[in-house]
């Protein structure tokens, strides 16, 4: 290279680096961020009592949100797109909540002052049972229509539920197939009826006229009104059923319809002219449009929202949570603190799952219970923002929840006690494996926290980070090779009936019972309780059985999950949906600006 080289020019480059170094001073989190100051972190696991509304409650329109205005465009920014929009494939709180914008079900939760009440949505009420809970009847409201103006019929509701039997719909809830066929599990159910394309008409559902749906169950069912609120209970028009395409762009019955859905990029909603507020006691439709954007890192979205940059002022998130990195910034500034939308994340709990058939010795599981560094792990996940430390299996958000703490332990863990229990174990445990999805660096850090704690108790914890897809594949697969993993789960609706019977019954497959828990006494109890038709009694029995299960330490309760999302300053009405655990979009409006 001829002439003067570039290197004599290193000096400016170095100077820049040095300047960068100098201006990087920052205030520590400790300057005014103490433990006891105001925090936006919500108390998680708020106790709930979900009531069943009456037919009157089910009549629209929904009670106005005070101060709400019509008009404007709301931007909903999340890093990830919805994996599914097909109503029969939707099976997660945030998707339930979002799909309320365009989808309607037989029943739905009406929220007033933060209290949920189950009311009729398409149906006039939450359903009437007869025959000891074996027959449930729903009548459809008048004036309910699709986005093209055609009325919603009972046959379309039936068709929607029939779809849940079809192949490809395994990812949705299994209750309709199981209940309607009286089967142990879905695999058995679909042998009896394989969906509308394969086996045509499903006899268990009758539609005597366009307005009436009658369910016939071989066994008594008490939770049908709740199941009727699930997205699976949405009507589907056979002529609009585009198969997998329906998963990208479903046909609307709710207040909005989907204009365009570019996957992982955007989803645009506009008003559905054929939706009538007077038929709907749940949803509001204040904004003219909803624009969902996907792909932007949560941190960027948060910055824009808190600073009101770009469309930030009219943006809110339903999936992206307040990044832990921004917590102290937000807490320092009251104006920003207001923009955090927090609450209990429905009935979600996070637990350390232990494969009971491998870590068979309860003493070892107890040792894990004692050494588990709850506080440290939670600190990595954002401290109290992650939720409150749990002592029970079910969330306080479940109807009838009772507090218990079978093996009290300090939040930071009790290594000495753990060692005691390990000493009592029949065979010495020196090595355990822990799998986790590598979704965020926090996952890696939690793993390191665990390695540290297990190490102190003399157990080598082998940690294995897996791609998220591979992780879920693996730990819920029949041949899951890992001893431990953290899992966040929820009951499907706020009664205890979907918790123990669907996860702690020894015959269940790995997907439902990934810890392979099996206790003959619990099995017998569950069989007995299954026959109870009275919802109230059933709930009570299940709650008391929970302590019996937890005596075995099948899992280590970790957190009652909290959620903190955020909204722009011009977004009104954003509050966490008490059931679905995300901001309820159906109540959101754009403030006067």
């Amino acid at each position, binding site marked *: *290279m*001829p*002439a*003067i080289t*570039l*290197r*004599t*020019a*290193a*000096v*400016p*480059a170095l100077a*820049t*680096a040095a300047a*960068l170094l100098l201006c990087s001073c920052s205030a520590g989190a400790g300057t005014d961020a103490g433990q006891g100051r105001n925090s936006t972190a919500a108390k998680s696991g708020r106790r709930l009592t979900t009531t069943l509304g009456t037919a009157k409650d089910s009549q629209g329109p929904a009670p106005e949100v005070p101060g709400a205005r019509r008009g404007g465009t709301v931007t909903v920014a999340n*890093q990830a797109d919805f*994996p599914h929009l097909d109503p029969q494939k939707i099976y997660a709180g945030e998707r339930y909540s979002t799909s309320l914008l365009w989808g309607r079900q037989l029943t739905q939760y009406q929220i007033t002052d933060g209290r949920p009440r189950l009311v009729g949505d398409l149906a006039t009420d939450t359903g009437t049972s007869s025959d000891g809970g074996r027959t449930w009847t729903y009548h459809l409201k008048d004036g309910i229509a699709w986005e093209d103006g055609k009325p919603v019929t009972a046959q379309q509701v039936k068709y929607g539920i029939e779809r849940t039997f*079809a*192949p*490809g719909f*395994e*990812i949705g809830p*299994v209750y309709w197939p199981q209940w309607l066929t009286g089967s142990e599990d*879905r*695999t058995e159910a679909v042998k009896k009826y394989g969906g509308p394309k394969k086996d045509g008409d499903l006899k268990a559902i009758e539609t005597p006229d366009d307005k009436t749906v009658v369910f016939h169950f071989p066994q008594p069912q008490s939770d049908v009104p709740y199941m009727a609120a699930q997205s699976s209970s949405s009507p589907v028009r056979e002529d609009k059923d585009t*198969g*997998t*395409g329906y*998963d*990208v762009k479903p046909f609307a019955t709710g207040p909005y319809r989907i204009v365009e859905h*570019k*996957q*992982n*990029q955007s989803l645009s909603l506009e008003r559905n002219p054929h939706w009538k507020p007077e038929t709907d006691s749940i949803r509001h439709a204040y904004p003219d449009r909803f624009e969902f954007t*996907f*792909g*932007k*890192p949560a941190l*960027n*979205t948060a*910055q*824009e929202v808190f*600073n009101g*940059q*770009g469309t*930030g002022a009219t943006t809110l998130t339903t999936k992206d949570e307040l990044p832990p990195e921004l917590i102290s910034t937000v807490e320092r500034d009251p104006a920003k603190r207001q923009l955090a939308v927090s609450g209990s994340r429905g009935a979600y709990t996070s637990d350390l799952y232990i494969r009971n058939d491998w870590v068979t010795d309860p003493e070892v599981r107890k040792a894990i219970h004692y050494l588990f560094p709850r506080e440290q792990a939670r600190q990595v996940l954002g401290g109290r923002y992650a939720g409150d430390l749990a002592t029970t299996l079910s969330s306080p958000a479940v109807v009838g929840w009772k507090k218990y703490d079978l093996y009290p332990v300090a939040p930071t863990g009790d290594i000495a006690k753990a060692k005691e229990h390990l000493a009592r174990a029949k065979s010495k445990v020196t090595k355990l494996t822990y799998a986790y999805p590598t979704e965020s660096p926090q996952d890696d850090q939690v793993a390191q926290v665990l390695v540290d704690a297990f190490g102190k108790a003399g157990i080598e914890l082998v940690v294995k980070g*897996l*791609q*998220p*897809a*591979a992780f*879920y*594949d*693996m730990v*819920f*697969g029949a041949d899951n090779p890992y001893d431990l993993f953290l899992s966040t789960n929820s009951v499907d609706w706020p009664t205890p009936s979907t918790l123990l019977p669907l996860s702690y019954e020894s015959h269940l*497959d790995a*997907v439902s019972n990934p810890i392979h828990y099996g206790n003959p006494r619990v099995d017998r109890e569950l069989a007995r309780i299954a026959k109870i038709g009275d919802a109230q009694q059933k709930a009570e029995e299940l709650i008391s059985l929970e302590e019996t299960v937890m005596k075995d330490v099948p899992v280590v309760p970790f957190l009652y999950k909290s959620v903190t999302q955020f909204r722009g300053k011009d977004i009104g009405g954003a509050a966490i949906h008490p059931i679905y655990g995300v901001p309820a979009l159906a109540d959101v409006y754009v403030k006067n600006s």
Partner: protein
Amino acid sequence: MTRYLLKRVAQAVAVLLAISATAFGLFYAAPSDPARIACGPKCDSAQLAAVRTSMGLDQPIVSQFTDYVGGIVTGRTIADVDGTPIPCPAPCLGYSYTLHQPVLAAIEDRLPVTVSIAVGALAVILVLGVGSGLAAALRRGRPTDRLLSGFNLLGASVQIYFLGYVLQFLLVYSTGLFAPPRYVPFADGPGQWALGLVLPWLVLGFVNAAVYARLTRSQMLETMHHGYVRTARAKGLGTLRSHLKYTARGAAGPLVQLLGLEVGALLGGAFITETVFGLGGVGKLAVDAVTGNDLPTVVGTVLVAAFFVVLFVALADLVVAWLDPRVRLA
């Protein structure tokens, strides 16, 4: 010429075939089963087998590959997970079971973003890299040269993921000097389009410009010593004019070739830039596909990225031949 083009096309096809075969073989060995992911966790083995059949995963890999290549040429019909036939016209790059759309359509959706990033970044590279390289060469040894070279050295040493975040924090979120990075289609207003992308352009351009600045400078200095530049000055041409007309022309060859490679690479997706600024281009699609184990999309994006590289490298060769009549295309 025609003969050259034909030969070139044949070479390109061979390269692309080799790349797609490699990608196919590699991602086939990926950790999780695409069928299981498409089917969901609650899928039993019978359902899984059905899904595998409809996805064609039960075929031996070689026949899967030949089907794939056949699809590119003639198009084909692919069965979705539930057996729904999906038409995928030529050039069919497969069908994404996660996105429920043909891979090419998914790429086409995101290509505008990637093209927008590439265009702007390229402009920055040209102005900042080539421009400062030219200026440094013309003022070699003087403070301008040192300053520009230092600036470029910094660019060569700094990382997008470091600089991107720091600038984003300083210029967007702390001071609001720049609009938050986002993609607005060009058709919705060129102003908005440019405003949303200016920061990614600057960062990507700055980091890549260094190579061009160095190459431009050293090429210019090398060419400057050629007699014909002196001849031009001896004719009475001004210094600047003779450098621009003669030196620059002589120095352009390697630059054009590097640019060809760069344009190709940029159009294949700027993975890190797109990740840092949250822009949903082809790079993001590819990374998402890898993490989501979306095999068809991964192979498709690899192939498209390689296609752009091959295409623009070939174009660059043509430009070089046009620039330098001594180069014979053979």
